[in-house]
């Protein structure tokens, strides 16, 4: 079943098109990952799905309705977004930032209700931040900070989570830590997760659906077995990859790689 339908979208800044005539359907209740080289339009596509950028052509549909025509608050109740570089204003505590996730559900002056507190406390617990909840965010480590932003997105209480490179700037263990958390949310609660990842092997290991892009266009999409092939990696990244199988997920991974002689 499809939850987000991207149909013939063209997206760009001012006059340059970054994504051109791209169509892809994001399956419901799965982890989908977008991969591709730098500047291929991954983040731009995600921004259009997040309705931060307007599509110049085509449209993004959420459950069959054009996302730009829906009320932004209604979309925010269905879909949470974690941007690539999120910074919190100084002095804000973990609890305060996570509580902002309740914004789309609040009305009027917006005192937090019982239900809001339940969501906030649940999000703090599930991300393992209980002991830090009263600390200012700037006092936390990079991995903890990333968890705080995920907690805020979780407090939003949406069934779709969109994340732009959630593991960037984290060390190996903390990267895995975040991805395992996302996997747990997907498996145990059936949340749809759409993210951009730079690490191909993480992408293959943790997602059921992969979208490979190059130069603003879709190269291939499907399950990791279909996408993670030597031929596709050549087409997408222009690399000569040696493939292997991931001992944890049994999905294909790229063991090592070489640039082609004629690489640009």
């Amino acid at each position, binding site marked *: 079943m499809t939850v987000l339908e991207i149909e013939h979208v063209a997206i760009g800044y001012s006059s340059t098109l970054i994504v051109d005539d791209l169509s892809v359907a994001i399956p419901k209740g799965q982890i989908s990952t977008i991969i591709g080289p730098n500047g291929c339009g991954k983040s731009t596509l995600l921004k259009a799905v997040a309705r931060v950028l307007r599509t110049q052509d085509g449209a993004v549909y959420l459950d069959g309705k054009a996302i730009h025509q829906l009320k932004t608050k*209604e979309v925010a109740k269905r879909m949470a977004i974690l941007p690539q570089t999120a910074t919190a204003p100084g002095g804000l505590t973990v609890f305060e930032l996570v509580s902002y996730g309740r914004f789309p559900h609040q009305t009027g002056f917006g005192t937090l209700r019982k239900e809001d507190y339940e969501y906030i406390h649940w999000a703090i617990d599930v991300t393992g931040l209980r002991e830090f909840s009263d600390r200012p965010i700037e006092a936390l480590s990079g991995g903890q900070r990333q968890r705080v932003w995920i907690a805020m997105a979780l407090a939003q209480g949406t069934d779709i989570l969109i994340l732009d490179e959630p593991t960037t700037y984290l060390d190996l263990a903390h990267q895995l830590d975040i991805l395992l958390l996302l996997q747990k949310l997907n498996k145990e609660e059936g949340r749809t997760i759409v993210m951009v990842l730079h690490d191909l092997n993480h992408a293959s290991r943790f997602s059921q659906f992969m979208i490979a892009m190059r130069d603003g266009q879709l190269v291939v999409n499907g399950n990791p077995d279909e996408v993670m092939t030597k031929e596709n990696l050549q087409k997408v990244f222009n690399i000569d990859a040696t493939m292997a199988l991931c001992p944890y997920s049994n999905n294909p991974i790229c063991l090592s790689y070489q640039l082609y002689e004629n690489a640009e």
Partner: protein
Amino acid sequence: MNNNSFLTASQQKARKKNFFILSILVVFIVITFVISMNTGVIKLTPMEVIRTLFGFGDAQQQLILYEFRLPRIIIAVLVGMGLATSGAILQGISKNALADPGILGINAGAGLAVMLFISFFPATTAAPVYLLPVLAFVGAGLTAIVIYTLSYKRHEGITPMRLLLTGIAVAAGISSAMIVLTLRLSPENYQFVATWLAGSIWGSNWKFVLSLLPWLLILFPFVYAKSRVLNILNLGDLTAVGLGASIEKERRWLLAASVGLAGASVSVSGGIGFVGLIAPHLARQLVGAKHQFLLPASALVGGLLVLLADTIGRSILEPSEIPAGIVVAVLGAPYFLYLLARVKE
């Protein structure tokens, strides 16, 4: 059911602390108020002030307090509150801690309007005084509109960074226009404009209180109702949209409120600059980044700051006065250097 029961003990403590800080600020304003009432060429003891306030003073004491000092004190507090709130809004929507109403060209626009009026109608005597705040307000508003239009781009709308840069450029342009205009001015008029620009609270009269108060009464509740929106605008565009805020629309309204507050304030006080920058900074140190507390704390700090500055300015070189804007700058600059030094570490 009491929502506070969901908060941990330390969160309840933090809330209590913030309410306590707000009350302390109110107490400080009241103390400065009483001191300011005693300040002036004609000395009144605190007892005489209190007696007069309750209606037992003689005619001269009543005249001094009710017609001269009280309106001026009230204007000082209101102007401080308006400018500080305006600055807090701008810092919130631009995510830039250096944004203040001056950067948006509001002071410069108001100043230019006042200067144009004085240089083209130099002979007019008593009447124009009441026209000046109107003119200053129009000047401030027009400048804001020009800056907004110049920084607007199709498909992208207004980005805070472009808004600030355009603001700085336009303010610089207006300042140079003002320098050219000073050549036309007679020394007396120049004197008046210079004092105006330095931010002397010159409109110390009940009429000016009445011209300022409605703006604050309308705009303060509006801005406070937007506390939550300001909180999430502060997280950046992407996050704010993701949380369901219509950022373009919200930003436009908040910007308009900010211009309204600063324009109204500057029109009766003259170009007091530093308050909108420094008061929200101080307030953030005191109560943190949540606008539910930050906005009232900024307003109170701003009111206190301008009242204090005006009181000092009136008493330090008696019987002549130093404009409140200059005193604020003298008080504010060291604090700002201290902030910079701390950031370096």
